[in-house]
């Protein structure tokens, strides 16, 4: 799925996690991978809707430096 998203060459991809209750390190890794690949193309990834457990994980991993949470 990430390959397909990157191949679309959009200027911005928004990842909406509003309905996500639980995320693990594999899920975070997939989002970070998407972010890195998009950044290499000069594009952006935005993450919206973070709360509760996913928000705690993003803060722990200091991803709030690169995503607005």
């Amino acid at each position, binding site marked *: 799925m990430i390959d397909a998203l990157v191949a679309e060459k959009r200027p911005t991809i928004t990842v909406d996690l509003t309905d996500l209750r*639980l995320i*693990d*390190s*594999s899920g975070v890794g997939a989002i970070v991978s998407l972010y890195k690949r998009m950044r290499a193309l000069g594009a952006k990834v935005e993450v919206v809707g973070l709360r509760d457990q996913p928000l705690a994980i993003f803060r722990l*991993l200091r991803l709030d430096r690169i995503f607005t949470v």
Partner: protein
Amino acid sequence: MIHLRVPGTLRYRDLAVRVVGAACKLVGTSDEATGPVRINSKWDNEVISAFGEAFNNAAIHSYRGGMPGDVEIEVDVGANHITIRLLDFGNSFDLALIPAPDLDALPESGLGLFIIRSFMDDVKYLAGSPNVLSMTKYLDPGRRPPKKPSDSFEDSSGGDSRQ
């Protein structure tokens, strides 16, 4: 003590996480209570996060390269703590050899043990058959009991590098 034994595959992860999540809500409640009364979703979420990573490690790493075996989960619920012991019968690892991730480098893997260590107050691993990962979290870490010498194992010999 709550016991659960499930196949060590990701198919059973959600079931095991739900059991641990329900157990979290019993921490700090009395035996006479008819149902969970404590609400501390942040604390619960940290336990659930750590346990989920531990289950992933057992399913993905311990049983890598072979037939998946079972994972046994033991949950001890107390007035001020939850202790989760996760037993698997697969490959061992060496906790001491796994470095903390470089978060500045935006790692895409190798974060599981970091999450476990960050969210739980005590983490111990004993390699063997079974491998035993024991993790405890206190509602009030200031009231945790003093450590005993027998609590000092944090690692044993091991094999693969775990995430």
